[in-house]
């Protein structure tokens, strides 16, 4: 009985809505910070020493905008499965990149929410944080019912307007 209740609660679309808003705010904020300082973000990417040089600038230009678009989509409830899938993919890649850098002993800034090279250096807590956020993304992908989504709200208003 208790177990069934816990499972129902964990699979709740309301919990998914909460995760959607959390990830939405996080990704919009993270994207805007990087858009404001593309060179700083490119430098943060370079410091990981994982990417080939030709990939750094295109990624520094495009990734922040993808983050903002997907974050805004999650907040507004537009293309939720696609947004959740990309967010989960990105978080998995970020977690692996930070993990590899920690194993290699690099003392670098994350470049996640700040483009400053003097920002707090990466630790295993960053990996844990990304995995928790990845869990949120997967939850949205599996259980979201598009509550409080803009398309649904518009759809609900249309018959009233046409009357």
């Amino acid at each position: 009985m208790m177990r069934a209740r816990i499972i129902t609660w964990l699979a709740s679309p309301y919990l998914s809505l909460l995760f959607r808003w959390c990830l939405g705010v996080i990704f919009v904020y993270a994207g805007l910070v990087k858009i404001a300082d593309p060179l700083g973000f490119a430098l943060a990417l370079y410091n990981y020493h994982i990417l080939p040089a030709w990939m750094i600038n295109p990624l520094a230009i495009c990734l922040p905008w993808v983050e903002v678009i997907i974050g805004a989509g999650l907040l507004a409830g537009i293309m939720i499965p696609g947004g959740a899938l990309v967010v989960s993919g990105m978080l998995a890649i970020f977690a692996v990149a930070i993990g590899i850098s920690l194993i290699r002993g690099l003392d670098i800034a994350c470049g996640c929410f700040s483009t400053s090279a003097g920002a707090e250096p990466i630790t295993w807590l960053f990996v844990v944080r990304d995995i928790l956020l990845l869990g949120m993304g997967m939850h949205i992908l599996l259980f979201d019912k598009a509550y409080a989504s803009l398309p649904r709200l518009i759809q609900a208003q249309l018959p009233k307007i046409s009357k």
Partner: protein
Amino acid sequence: MKARKPRTGAWRLSRAIWQGIFLVCLGALLATGFNAVRTTGLAWRGTWSPASLAASQRQGLEEIPLQEAWVLYEGGKALFVDTRDPVSFYEGHIKGALNCPPGEAERYLEEIRILALSGLVIIAYCDGVDCPLSTELARSLQRAGVAPVWVLVDGWGRWRKAGYPTEKGNR
């Protein structure tokens, strides 16, 4: 009337993938447009090597040669700002330097501004030719109206090698 097909897991995954591709393309398109019109846009092909990196970071900033920095130090006309982390600073720094990593710029802004107004030349330094901390702090200070801020490239390493005065501990 045609019966609606049940939405399977594979259908949902396929929809998520297509939506994901669309969102990524939309983001890339907006990024390309914005990067083309903004004044601080990045080149699509960047040269990423330690030497070119150090040069690009210092663009628009004033570098000070070691000898000039030493003359100012001897005359008591310079404030050296060590931009490295507190532990490195504790282990050794230019004698009389202030420890201010870029993330702490706001905290020390007023102190540095007053010292600059009193006539001291502000010289930021860190360790290594490709260290970005001193240039980053110099830019932050200049944005906050403290100008000019000079950068002593590879300041800590060159200062030590030259045998100029250093000290240990916190300021």
